[in-house]
């Protein structure tokens, strides 16, 4: 019988073991990638241009010397960023239960629609007769947002949730000033997102905390006692950051209104109630909607977001410019030039153009896909998934509010019961080794060692069961004092990183090493 003369044999498992480090530092599919500045060159480029006959420059004598910006060819560029991408966790890879962030699946139809040249390739200052479809798209999304929230109007231009908060508070301040009633204080629950107090302070208000009750809700009695002629507004998150609906919301709104104040609602958690509850029915005056949360526009590694703000009748006259209106056959923009006649009480403009159009097209696509019935199912499934996680783990993790009933779309746990020396961060990092993104840690501040789990409606039961099994095992190890948790993660592209060093000696830009190895060159770029 003949044998393959090359020496080839089918591969088979071997009994030998090796722990040797690799020469490259790579580990098969886990590839290390240097910094662009270590591999690129000033004379390298990945683009070609038509040659051009250069005339005498008309640059006012301000020609630049050089830029020290390295380039890469196209194949090197594709490889650089593809390798980097593989060091990221993402929704596309698995469960990303980051509480308060609503990391749900991002439908690719949204991406495709946003890239239609009729949306992606239009200039914000094009004559309005050439952008009627864009204005109609904004108007249709606005209609849906108004209907879903039961409000009177919506300001579409805010660029993100925190920018929306700013918009809402500026409306409130403008409305109060218009009635000659300057007030100084904004009340914010202790459990609020950090953006709430930061925004209120940015608008010139003094921020005071509202305490929470033992079962994780706003203390209505304490709130009522604090209300008075100096309180401009109350900022409430509902469902709140403990994952609970505020059952007294209407009573809170009524009390604030009776005291002459206004109610701002942080809409970060709208996903739990979309299609089920309309904030307008709860007496809310302003609420931002994170399109990148409830309406699935991608989070993109930290933005761009989009934060339209729905407004009550009391605040609608003060909404920012520009906005879209329909008149006769067409749509048009209300901007500075016609605001005097048509929207005279506006507080002004918040951004150069019309808001995050690229997010509007995605959000409208998502809304049309789900429809009114589907959005309602979104809320129900997101709440069902969170309660499933809560009840499946409450025997091994302390769930401080579980006794008071079901949660909304996120389940909260504390670090109570962990053995000494082990903390929430150890549990979170161990989840990384199990192939999950950790939950939100140490937020809200009112729960010690908080772990806020928001699975969202786009997770299957099988996926949740795997997550629950992993977290159950880690929680048991934490209770048993398994110190090896402190080493986690061990399977990620990096072990725990030294954040203290990063803050103590900030290195915020790459410094080209001096050629003689005597140390880094000065930071300043340019030629």
């Amino acid at each position, binding site marked *: 019988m003949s044998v393959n003369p090359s020496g080839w044999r089918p591969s088979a498992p071997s009994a030998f073991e090796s722990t040797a480090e690799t020469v490259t530092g790579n580990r098969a599919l886990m590839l290390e990638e240097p*910094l*662009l500045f270590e591999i690129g060159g000033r*004379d390298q480029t990945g683009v070609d241009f038509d040659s*051009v006959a250069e005339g005498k420059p*008309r640059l006012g004598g*301000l020609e*630049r010397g*050089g830029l020290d*910006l390295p*380039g890469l060819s*196209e194949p090197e*560029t594709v490889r650089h*960023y*593809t390798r*980097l*991408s*593989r060091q990221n*966790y993402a929704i*596309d890879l698995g469960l990303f239960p980051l509480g308060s962030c609503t990391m749900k699946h991002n439908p690719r139809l949204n991406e495709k*629609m946003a*890239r239609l*040249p*009729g*949306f992606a*390739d239009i*200039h*914000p200052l094009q004559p309005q007769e*050439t952008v*009627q479809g864009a204005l109609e798209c904004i108007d249709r999304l606005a209609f*849906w947002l108004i209907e879903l929230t039961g409000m009177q109007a919506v300001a579409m231009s805010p*660029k993100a949730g925190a920018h929306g908060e700013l918009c809402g508070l500026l409306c409130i301040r403008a409305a109060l000033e218009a009635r000659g009633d300057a007030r100084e204080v904004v009340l914010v629950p202790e459990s609020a997102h*950090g953006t709430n107090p930061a925004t209120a*302070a940015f*608008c*010139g208000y003094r921020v005071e905390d509202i305490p929470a009750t033992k079962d994780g809700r706003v203390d209505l009695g304490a709130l009522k006692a604090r209300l008075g002629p100096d309180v401009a507004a109350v900022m409430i998150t509902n469902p709140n950051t403990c994952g609970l609906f505020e059952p007294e919301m209407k009573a809170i709104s009524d009390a604030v209104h009776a005291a002459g104040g206004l109610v701002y609602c942080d809409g970060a958690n709208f996903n739990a109630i979309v299609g*089920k509850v309309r904030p307008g*029915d709860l007496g809310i005056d302003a609420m931002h909607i994170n399109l990148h949360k409830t309406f699935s526009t*991608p*989070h993109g*590694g*930290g*933005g*761009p977001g989009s934060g339209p703000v729905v407004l009550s009748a009391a605040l609608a006259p003060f909404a920012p410019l520009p906005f879209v209106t329909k008149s006769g056959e067409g749509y048009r923009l209300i901007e500075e030039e016609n605001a005097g006649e048509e929207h005279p009480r506006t507080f002004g403009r918040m951004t*150069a*153009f019309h808001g995050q*159009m690229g997010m509007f097209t995605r959000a409208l696509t998502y809304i049309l*896909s789900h429809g*009114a019935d*589907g959005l309602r*199912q979104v809320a129900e*499934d997101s709440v069902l998934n969170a309660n499933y996680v809560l009840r499946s783990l409450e025997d091994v993790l302390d769930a401080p509010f579980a006794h008071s009933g*079901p949660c909304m779309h996120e389940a909260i746990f504390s670090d109570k019961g962990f053995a000494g020396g082990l903390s929430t961060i150890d549990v979170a990092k161990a989840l990384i080794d199990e192939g999950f993104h950790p939950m*939100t840690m140490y937020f809200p501040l009112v729960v010690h060692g908080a772990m806020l789990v928001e699975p969202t409606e786009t997770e299957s039961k099988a996926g949740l069961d795997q997550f629950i099994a992993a977290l159950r095992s880690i929680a048991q190890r934490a209770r048993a004092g398994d110190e090896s948790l402190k080493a986690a*993660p061990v399977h990620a592209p990096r*072990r725990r*990183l030294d954040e203290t060093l*990063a803050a103590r000696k*900030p290195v*915020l*830009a790459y410094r080209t090493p001096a050629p003689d190895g005597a140390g880094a060159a000065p930071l300043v770029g340019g030629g």
Partner: protein
Amino acid sequence: MRYLPLSDADRAAMLDTIGAGSVDELFRDVPEAARLTGPIHGLPSHASEMAVERDMKGLAAKNVAAGDAPFFLGCGAYRHHIPASVDHLIQRGEFLTAYTPYQPEIAQGTLQVLFEFQTQVARLLGCEVANASMYDGSTACWEAIGMARRVTRRKKAILSSGLHPHYVSVCRTMAKFTGDMLATAAPELSAETDAERLVAAIDGETSCVVVQYPDILGRIADLAPIAEAAHAAGALLVAVVTEPVALGLIKAPGEMGADIVVGEGQSIGVGLQFGGPYVGLFATREKFVRQMPGRLAGETVDAAGKRGFVLTLSTREQHIRREKATSNICTNSGLCALAFSIHMTLLGEKGLTGLAKLNHARACEVADRLAAIPGIRVINDAFFNEFTLELPVEARPAVHAMVKKGVLGGVSLGRLYPDEDGLAKGLVVAVTETASDEDIGALESALKEVCQ
């Protein structure tokens, strides 16, 4: 419902685990009066992918895409060719569907990109450090004024008349609430910028001077004399760049003494998108970094001694400092920063310089051809890829008349400054590498006809 994986059997089994009889029981904290019992009136039910696509395409078709007409608009947003690999790479799920890198061990991709972005932006703008992006140029501009207030402990900002009027509007809106005083003015149709007026206006109360470069009319002037005057009075110079491609050819504001340089980064890697999302650039001196708003990525090491990156100096930020934060910004513009960074990597110094030269040469050619039309005057002596024409007729109707001829011929100053009669004949024309010879010919003949 294609985006919802739970089956009815799953739902029943999960309710069983929870110990609830129905999903409605989970909503028991919602008072009866606030609950909606059926689908919201007037809203349609769910739709197939095909049906939604048809609907959205119908909307898109009602717009004139810039690529479908001779196109010459600028004034804060510019149409450049974006290499195909940029959009491919930003659509990788690991970038697109990740979030703010709160867990650095599994977010090194995003963090290294941000560190590289910060370095690219700092070098482009001629500064020491840059942040990981802002919402857009206009909000970055306002944040710079706020930062100058914190650094100088003064509240009077002097804004150049060449600053984009929408940026001025944003600053005015915010200043009403923060108590900053803004000195503003409208531009004049002249080759001269208002540098002298700015220098004369600086006093001991001035926190900063804000100058756009190139300015709203496309003019370019040396920032060094303004920087000197500002520094002599203890004030800062804030420079605003809305067309960063220009910095491939002209001196960076940081090189001329600007203390804070902000910009709109859309030109590099990000499409027009009717005004957003865009990406704000923000750079400054290292000594001011603790007063800088926005996220920052920094270098560090991991437990095994390997280099890695983390978000850092977060004690400036809202989630730590709450009401004492430098800004309320949380989400920035990560994916657009990625697109900017990839495009900048493809360009490199060589490509950016080449792109800038091409833009400038094209713009010079178009300026000469349009200046030859009887009655039209080019007001700029110096410009990059955008210049201002004074037409013999009002520019606003002229723009609409050109649309009827299928030409998107520029931005009229009447649209930007509706109350300034002296600017009514001004038309700002931007010429990038995307303008073909046919496009330029179409603009030339359309302008000739509407100016008759």
